[in-house]
């Protein structure tokens, strides 16, 4: 066993030969943060008494959900055979929506720890990230975690990992982040197995941004991996994608608190502060160079974050619109992937159409808005971006069903994804049934081990954004996992279904669906609304229509009685208070024409039954 390093290598003066850059690829819940915590402790950068559980996950929501949204990098000293090494652990986001950020984190490393729960085996997102790491030629160290659990099956999953990356099951390390068993051996293995970074110390500086975080006090903190040359404090740097230049106010490493250094050299990982206030000025994937001595070529792999899923966000109380606007502005500072523009809904009032990387990104953003800014929000059903070509060849991009063109349509294209699903083989039939009902086309199927399969489908994105994952989970009793990535577009027979109350179209309930599913959507939504909208003083017809053709109808009978029979001396105060409460309630009604629709109806109508159950469980 190696002792803690007696002297730590000094940043800006560290030979690349003693640097090891690695990340941990793991699924949510497989114990990445706990293992990271244990490494911080074993290397002595955090004392046991200072240990906050899951030190690296700073945001409350991250800690509660047990997932890491924003990655960071920590420099840890570790001594092997009398040589003190600098280990940079780059934390990676663990969810499907943040694939691009993961790919940049991987690009900053020479190696990756493939961390898998010894009781659960590998999951689809982990597998996807593993493939990504292998494409980047990273050296993989397979590790089984939670070997202390009674349900652990280390032999079975060691064999699975060995077959995935090639090698011997005996080489798979077994650790417990909880008890600390095997952690020091893992640190040793990182030093021994991972290659040292390579780069040209004399070339113009090039550093890749793999993360960018907004801090209220410091502005944007940018995390970089230096590839060539060296960055120094106070010099002017340039972002190669935008040509924007900034003064480097501070440069340093996290261990784990930010510690300023005299610079960062080849292979080093650290942070930069330039005083910019918006993460968009410091984009993940971009290359930082020296303004006075710029590099000729930026590092490969840069791409702009592209929103895939759109939803309307509306404040429950119209008076909160400015609060929502300010809140989105602030969130944007820290989230380069978030895009939004104001929109108006006849039913919901003033709000924003917001673009997200995926559903989790939507959920997290919504939750942060509600929690950190004390907002009550209605979010409309998520949808994707369609490309609609009219007969006059005009092309319209639609992110909101209410903007769907009414003219003659020649063609509609929808975004596609390639999805990978991992599950025990007993669920193959159920998964195929689900994917086929979602217009999926099977791409292939492989056995990962005796009883676990990898199934690949090409699916329309629109079919997986709403409730696909919830249904997949329930059909596979929780064992199924999903990963997806964008995979072009396809022409599809899509129609817009409108919902009308008393002949008045309610934009919030419009949906773009495949023609075969329009009828069932219409029946479902009209039925739901009949239950959710209270009886009014007149009969309210509810209709679903494609254009002018009605495909489903329901009706809410007129209310006939709304009077308290008795109102004598002792009832008056009580009755008045009830009336005041009812009038307050009326303010929370949205008027659709002359129909009063409670806010709750909008929320309930736009929620799937599965996600409602989930909300109840919370």
């Amino acid at each position, binding site marked *: 066993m190696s002792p803690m390093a007696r002297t730590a290598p000094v940043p800006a003066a560290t030979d690349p030969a003693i640097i090891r850059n690695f990340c941990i690829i793991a699924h949510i819940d497989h114990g990445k943060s706990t293992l990271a915590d244990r490494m911080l402790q074993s290397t002595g950068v955090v004392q046991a008494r200072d240990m906050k559980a899951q030190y690296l996950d700073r945001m409350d929501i991250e800690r509660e959900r047990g997932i890491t949204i924003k990655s960071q990098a920590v420099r840890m000293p570790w001594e092997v055979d009398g040589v003190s090494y600098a280990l940079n652990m780059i934390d990676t986001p663990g969810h499907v929506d943040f694939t691009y950020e993961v790919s940049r984190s991987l690009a900053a490393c020479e190696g990756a720890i493939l961390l898998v729960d010894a009781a659960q085996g590998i999951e689809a997102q982990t597998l996807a990230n593993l493939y990504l790491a292998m494409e980047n030629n990273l050296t993989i160290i397979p590790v089984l975690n939670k070997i202390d659990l009674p349900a652990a099956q280390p032999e079975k999953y060691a064999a699975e990992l060995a077959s995935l990356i090639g090698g011997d099951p005996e080489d798979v390390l077994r650790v417990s982040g909880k008890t600390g068993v095997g952690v020091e051996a893992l640190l040793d293995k990182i030093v021994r197995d991972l290659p040292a970074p390579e780069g040209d110390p004399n070339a113009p500086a090039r550093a890749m941004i793999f993360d960018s975080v907004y801090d209220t006090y410091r502005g944007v903190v940018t995390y970089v991996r230096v590839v060539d040359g060296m960055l120094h404090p106070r010099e002017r740097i340039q972002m190669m994608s935008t040509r924007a230049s900034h003064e480097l106010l501070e440069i340093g490493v996290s261990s784990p608190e930010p510690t300023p250094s005299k610079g960062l050299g080849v292979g080093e990982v650290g942070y930069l502060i330039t005083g910019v206030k918006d993460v968009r000025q410091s984009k993940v994937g971009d290359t930082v160079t020296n303004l006075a001595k710029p590099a000729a070529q930026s590092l490969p792999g840069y791409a702009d974050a592209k929103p895939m899923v759109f939803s309307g966000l509306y404040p429950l109380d119209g008076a909160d619109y400015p609060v929502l606007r300010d809140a989105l502005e602030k969130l944007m500072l820290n989230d380069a992937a978030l895009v939004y523009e104001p929109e108006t809904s006849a039913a919901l009032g003033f709000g924003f159409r917001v673009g997200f990387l995926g559903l989790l990104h939507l959920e997290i953003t919504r939750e942060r808005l509600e929690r950190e800014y004390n907002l009550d929000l209605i979010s409309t059903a998520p949808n994707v971006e369609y490309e609609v070509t009219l007969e006059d060849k005009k092309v319209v991009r639609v992110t909101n069903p209410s903007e769907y063109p009414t003219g003659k349509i020649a063609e509609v294209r929808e975004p596609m994804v390639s999805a990978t699903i991992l599950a025990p083989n007993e669920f193959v039939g159920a998964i195929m049934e689900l994917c086929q009902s979602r217009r999926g086309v099977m791409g292939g199927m492989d056995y990962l081990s005796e009883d676990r399969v990898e199934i690949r489908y090409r699916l329309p994105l629109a079919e997986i954004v709403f409730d696909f994952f919830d249904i997949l989970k329930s059909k596979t009793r929780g064992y199924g996992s999903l990963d997806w990535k964008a995979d072009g577009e396809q022409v599809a027979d899509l129609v817009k279904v409108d919902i009308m109350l008393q002949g008045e179209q309610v934009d919030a309930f419009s949906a773009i669906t495949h023609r075969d599913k329009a009828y069932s959507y219409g029946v479902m939504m009209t039925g739901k609304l009949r239950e959710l909208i209270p009886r009014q*003083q*007149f009969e309210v017809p509810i209709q679903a229509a494609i254009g002018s053709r009605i495909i489903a109808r329901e009706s809410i009978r007129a*209310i*006939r*009685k*709304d*009077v*308290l*029979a*008795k*109102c*004598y*001396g*002792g*009832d*008056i*105060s*009580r*009755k*008045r*208070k009830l*009336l*005041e409460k*009812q*009038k307050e309630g*009326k*303010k929370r009604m949205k008027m659709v024409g002359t129909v009063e629709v409670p806010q709750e109806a909008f929320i309930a109508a736009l929620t799937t039954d599965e996600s409602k159950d989930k909300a109840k469980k919370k």
Partner: protein
Amino acid sequence: MPSVLPLGDPAPSDGLLPAQAADGAAVRAFGLYVHIPFCAVRCGYCDFNTYTATELGGGASQDAYARTAVSEVALAATVLARSGVPDRKLGTVFFGGGTPTLLPADDLAMILRAAIGQWGIEDGAEVTTEANPDSVTRESLAVLKDAGFTRVSFGMQSAVPHVLKVLDRTHTPSRVPQVVQWAREAGLAVSLDLIYGTPGESLADWRHSLETALSYQPDHISAYALIVEEGTKLAAQMRRGEVPGIDDDDHADKYELADELITEAGLGWYEVSNWARTPEQACRHNLAYWRGDDWWGIGPGAHSHVGGVRWWNVKHPSAYANRLSQGLSPAAGRETLDAETRTLERVMLEARLQSGLEVSTLSPGGRHEVAGLIADGLVDPPAAFRGRLVLTLKGRLLADAVVRRILPD
């Protein structure tokens, strides 16, 4: 009177009223409500503040109750005088409960005489007691008449045995014509109280109850939709699915039938749930509630109103008797209404009356709604042209919705 007291400000122990109570009191009518908190049995639907005979002792016991009530009459006179409210004769008196006639007629007479002795009574004043058909006799009714009672309101509720059973009413239907006859002989005006919408009651059952009640030719009928209050036995039975729930459409059908049959029989509606043979036979005491007049409520849990101050007594008869025995006001809480709230109450209450609500009481926004209410068939057009908002039959069934529309947001 519902047993749940509203939330309000604490009332002072001397019961003194804020200054606004006296404003304009000289021109307002003054009435007395006397709550008798006793019943022989508690009915399954009832959430009123009432107790069965053996539950209470001391000054709260049935034997001592009349003297306790009389002591509040004396306190009331003192409080009003010290609050600067001028002396006024009683225009109406109403004994409710509970079952007032569970007390000996002499006790009721004693309380009434004490009140008349304190304030005096106007010529032609209306003095009513509620009564259970089981708990009056030819003799007791005569005693009441002699003491100054002018009117009796019988809790008939239904003429159908299975409906009475669900309501836990103990009287046999045939008792009703008997007691009506005795009341007439004593020279008392007669009102019958009916309840519709009881679980298990068919439309035919309800028609039978109405026709039976009307065959006794009452001077006045009150017909209330059954309200299932939280905390009652009936609410629990409903929750457990032992009896069917309330159906508003069924209530609407039955209200329409009631209005049709009662009107055919020659009575006219003057409030959502009340019909009288002639305008003079409308219950003036209840009208006083709806018109914002002053009244003092005697008894545990009783509510009072004087000049925009509403208060209510402690609920439990023992606590009530205790306070009075120490010379303290039994008031538990009160609220002092501002002008805006008083207008809101006025709209809420007067809209229920056949005499209607002066349209000029409404805010400009409320007045603007009137045309729409006429168009929706909820408000009577000729009355509206005369400047009064009077509900149609359909409007009466939707009175609360109408009020929400005409009140400012």
